[in-house]
């Protein structure tokens, strides 16, 4: 059995600093290999290095053999001739990787035409067959802009593999996808790995488990451990691997919250809400009561109107029908929102300290409340001296929570507050949010596409159905 892809002491350096430490691996026909680790761990660079796509200041060291050929012995042109024919790549951002002006089926058909030298009509038949195979039979005439993220990724999969490449590299192929769509892509990769070879890079333990084969855990450009998927995820030897496994919401501890006393005040009540978007009814006759200090989860696939519901409750978006009533006598600024992208909550032109001072001055708050609050959220007060762009996403999200809690709010709408964060950070932030909000007696409406996350953190859950 010859190796399709072979790396020998492959490392990636920028000037003097080593970004990815030497790594060796062999991938033969019928094998699947998944590299697991947080984003920013140099995993994506590895795939770019194999494809020969490293951006200029970065360099590759060590040997890469594709279908037995050492790519250092090939000219750049010959190296690119391997693309599509022997090795292909599934992009991280499928939307940006598809030609926005070309219809879906054509983007697959042209590969049969150009790479396999098929006649146009034949190419079209094959492309149609491929699209049907991944459940896109009806979408062939659509433009990429009219596809959902999951559909775009399936289309990209068809396009990437139509040229007949045995080796498929996939860089975070399930990023931002709902669970059911994520599982579909994982299944496609697993299938492809049975008659070819698949190298996947992901931060999602569940994806790694579903693809199976071998798993290599990487952290900060260094190999932590490797082994068979089942045994490694079942009994990891490295602490970091255990941390990654624990970071998946399935493995979070259920927050055992002290039983609320029965006579809690209502902070927000919605009656008979209805919202239609693009001709689809997202929800109708929806009633919802949110009580003080309660944590309510909303789940559903993307596009089901979860975020719209939250915005309607806050009065940021008008409902088509129904009304929202706030508790009487509570100042309007005690109803606040946390954004999916924490950057969205802060003015980028001012420093964090300035923004916190603005809030303190506006409401005549006690500035001495800030340090204990930051400590509660495990933040260093020194972070305030930085600009918005100089702190990490997890820190910024916690700073957003801190700024909100300064005002002692009664209701917080958290719109996918951790979906942009790394799993380990996401776990920390999500658990802190619910814990600290409970301590401050603030109700939280937590929206997430991940039913496990909501199940583990919320008192009760509202599932919005898929749009009709």
């Amino acid at each position, binding site marked *: 059995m010859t190796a399709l892809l072979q790396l020998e002491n492959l490392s990636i350096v920028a000037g003097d600093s080593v970004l990815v430490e030497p790594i060796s691996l062999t991938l033969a026909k019928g094998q699947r290999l998944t590299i697991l680790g947080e984003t920013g761990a140099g995993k994506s660079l590895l795939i770019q290095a194999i494809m020969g796509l490293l951006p200029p200041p970065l360099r590759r060291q060590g040997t890469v053999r594709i279908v037995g050929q050492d790519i250092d012995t090939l000219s750049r042109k010959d190296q690119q001739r391997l693309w599509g024919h022997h090795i292909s790549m599934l992009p991280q951002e499928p939307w940006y990787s598809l030609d926005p002006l070309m219809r879906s089926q054509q983007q697959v058909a042209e590969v049969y035409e150009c790479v396999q030298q098929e006649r146009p009509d034949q190419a079209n038949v094959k492309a149609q067959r491929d699209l049907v195979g991944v459940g896109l039979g009806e979408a062939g005439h659509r433009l990429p802009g009219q596809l959902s993220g999951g559909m775009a990724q399936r289309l990209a999969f068809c396009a990437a593999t139509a040229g007949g490449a045995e080796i498929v590299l996939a860089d975070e192929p399930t990023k931002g996808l709902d669970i059911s769509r994520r599982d579909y892509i994982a299944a496609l990769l697993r299938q492809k790995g049975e008659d070819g070879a698949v190298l996947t890079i992901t931060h999602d333990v569940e994806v790694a488990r579903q693809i199976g084969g071998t798993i290599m855990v990487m952290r900060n450009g260094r190999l932590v451990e490797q082994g068979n998927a089942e045994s490694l995820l079942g009994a990891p030897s490295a602490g970091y691997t255990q941390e990654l496994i624990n970071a998946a919401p399935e493995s979070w501890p259920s927050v055992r919250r002290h039983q609320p006393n029965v006579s809690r005040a209502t902070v927000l009540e919605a009656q008979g809400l209805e919202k239609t978007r693009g001709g689809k009814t997202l929800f109708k006759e929806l009633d919802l009561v949110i009580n003080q200090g309660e944590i309510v989860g909303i789940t559903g696939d993307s596009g089901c109107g979860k975020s719209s519901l939250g915005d309607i409750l806050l009065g*940021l978006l008008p409902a088509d029908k129904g009304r929202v009533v706030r508790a009487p006598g509570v100042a309007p600024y005690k109803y606040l*929102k946390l*954004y999916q992208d924490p950057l*969205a909550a802060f*003015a980028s*032109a*001012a420093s964090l300290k300035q923004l916190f001072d*603005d809030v303190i001055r506006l*409401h005549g708050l006690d500035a001495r409340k800030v340090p204990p609050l930051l400590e509660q959220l495990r933040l260093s007060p020194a972070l305030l001296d930085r600009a918005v762009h100089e702190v990490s996403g997890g820190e910024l999200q916690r700073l957003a929570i801190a*700024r909100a809690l300064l005002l002692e709010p009664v209701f917080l709408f958290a719109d996918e507050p951790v979906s942009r964060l790394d799993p380990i950070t996401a776990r920390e932030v999500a658990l802190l949010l619910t814990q600290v909000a409970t301590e401050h007696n603030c109700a939280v409406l937590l929206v997430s596409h991940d039913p496990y996350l909501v199940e583990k953190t919320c008192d009760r859950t509202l599932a919005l159905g898929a749009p009709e």
Partner: protein
Amino acid sequence: MRRVKQLNGSQQIGAAILACLVGFAFLEWLLNGTDPAVQNLGNLFAAPSLAEPLGTDQFGRSMLARMGAALRLSLLLSLVCVLTSATIGVALGVLAGWREGWIDRIVSFVLNMVLALPGLVLILLFAGLAPGSLLMLYLGISLVLWVEYFRVVRAITRASVASSPMQASRMLGFGSFYCFKRHVWPALLTPVLTLAAFGAAASILALAALGFVAVGLRPPTAELGLMMVELFPYYSEAPWVLAQPVFAVFLLIIALNLLAGKTK
């Protein structure tokens, strides 16, 4: 000073060239008492000398005095035009972008009217119906220039008002003035300064163009476009004199274009 440091390399070069031109125009006015209109028919096309560092023109007038006057005219007119159009454009743009509704509709209506005509034709119409009037030139150029500020400022204001950072500030209880200061103004500053540099270049070119097609200012005014037409017939006789207004316009425009930074 802080702003100067924020400029990139080519912007600094642009700023330096512009500073030299402004310095020349100002110092010439301060130190050189020669009247740019005084003719000396006995001293036509004198080569540069100590007494006349830039030589003389076809009527023996001092080119140093004429270049100083012409640069002052171009610089001042462009400054006034930019200030007027920027003030009007930014004010209306913020108002229309923020409030939307009827203000937006009225101003957009006027905007469409101005946009339906290429700028120079509009300026020509203004200039043509009162020839030689600097006021009409000023009105015409400003009328054409404010449109660009309005469009850009309105779009940015709209985006800022709809942006989630501003939504967040609103929820935190901040008022309109704070939102303007923290969200809208910082987003406006750089594009408006860029537009101002382009606008200044556009008004200098328009002034020269009108002088060139003889519907702008009238001789004997020292104006760069006018000087080019007047001196062109003598291109082989006194190329260095013709080169002066040509070079001055070139320097002005390239300085402003460099200062404006990368074109989009």
